[in-house]
C-alpha cells in the first residue's frame, strides 16, 4: 500500500485511539494519589511513539517487558499486570555493592 492508502484506511482509527490515550492521561493526572511502576513504564513507552525510530510497536512492547533473564522463585499469582514490577531494592543493592573482600 502507498502511504496515502495507509492514511486513508487507518488515520481515523489511529486518531480515535490517540484521543483515548490523551483522555486516559488526563484522567490519571486529575486523580489524587501516587503513581506506580505501570505509569512510569507507560511514559517510557510514550517516548517511543514520538521518536523517529522504526519498529515502534516492538519498542513499546519492550518498554513494558520484564528485562530479567532468570526464572522467578515461585509464581505468586496467575495474572499479568501489563508492566514489569521494579526489582526488589535488596536485590538491586546486592548487585551494586562490590564484594567485601577479594
Amino acid at each position, binding site marked *: *500500500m502507498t502511504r496515502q492508502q495507509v492514511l486513508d484506511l487507518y488515520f481515523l482509527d489511529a486518531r480515535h485511539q490517540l484521543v483515548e490515550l490523551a483522555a486516559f492521561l488526563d484522567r490519571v493526572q486529575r486523580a489524587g494519589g501516587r503513581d506506580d511502576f505501570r505509569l512510569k513504564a507507560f511514559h517510557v513507552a510514550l517516548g517511543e511513539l514520538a521518536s523517529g525510530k522504526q519498529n515502534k*510497536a516492538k519498542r513499546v512492547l519492550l518498554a513494558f*517487558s*520484564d528485562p530479567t533473564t532468570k526464572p*522467578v522463585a515461585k509464581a*505468586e499469582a496467575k495474572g499479568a499486570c*501489563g508492566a514489569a514490577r521494579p526489582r526488589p531494592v535488596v536485590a538491586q543493592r546486592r548487585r551494586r555493592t562490590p564484594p567485601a573482600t577479594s
Partner: protein
Amino acid sequence: MKYIEPHAHMVSRVTDDYERMALAGCVAVCEPAFWAGFDRSSPAGFHDYFSQLSEHEPKRAAKFGLQHFCWLGLNSKEAEDVKLAEEVLALIPEFLDRPNVLGIGEIGLNKNSRNELRVFEMQVELAARHHQLILVHTPHLEDKRKGTRLILEVLQNDRRIRPERVIIDHVEEHTVELVLAAGMWAGMTLYPETKCTPARAVDMLENHGQERLWLNSACDWGVSDPLAVPKTAREMKRRGHSAATIEKVVFQNPGQFLRQSPHFKL
C-alpha cells in the same frame, strides 16, 4: 474462503459459535488443553477433561460439519504444583493414540517460575519420548519476552526436538523474530484487548513474510472472538492481498504444520 482454526477452546463456547465458524468457512478446529479459569483439584479432573477433548467435543463439532482435533498437556497456570503435574503427565500417554490427538500442548510458561520451567521440561521430554508435535503457550504482557527466551532455550537445548515440529503461540512484535529465527513456527493470537489485533497481525505478515506463521483466535471463556481469523482475512483483503496469499495464511500454513501429525487428515 475456507480456513483452519488452529487454536480455539471450544469447550468454553456455545454451539452458535460452531455454527458461525462453519458459515464463515472453517473446516477444522484444533483445541489445545488449557486452564479452565480455576485450578482443578485432582488428576481425575484432568482425565475427564482429556476425555472431553478426545471423545465428546469432536461429536459436538461434527454436528456443524467441522472436524475437531486436540492437543493434550498441563497448562502453565497449574504447573506450580510439580507433584500434581507428574500425576497428570502420567495420564497423557493413554490418550495419544486417539484419532483426533495432534500432540502435546498447550504447554509453556505463565509467570516464568522455576516450577513452571521444570514442568515445561517434563512435557518436552514427554513429547520427545512419544514423537509428538509441540504447541507452546507464551506468557502474557510483561512476562512474554522473558518467557519466550526461556522456552526457546529449553527447546533448543534438546537435540531430539526438531524446530519445524514446534509452534510457539501468542507471538507479538517483540517475540516473533526470536521464534522464526529459531526455525520454529509462530502463532499470532487475535484478541480484542490483549495479544494481537487483525491490523497488527497483518503488519507482522508483511514484515516477516508468510512462512511458518499462522493465525488463531484462541477463543475461550474470556473476552475473545471465534471469528477473529476470518476477520483478519478480511483485513488482508482490505490491504490488497490476493486470495491465494490469504488462503496460504489461513488454510495452507496451519495444514502444512498440522499434517506432521498422522492424525491430522481433512
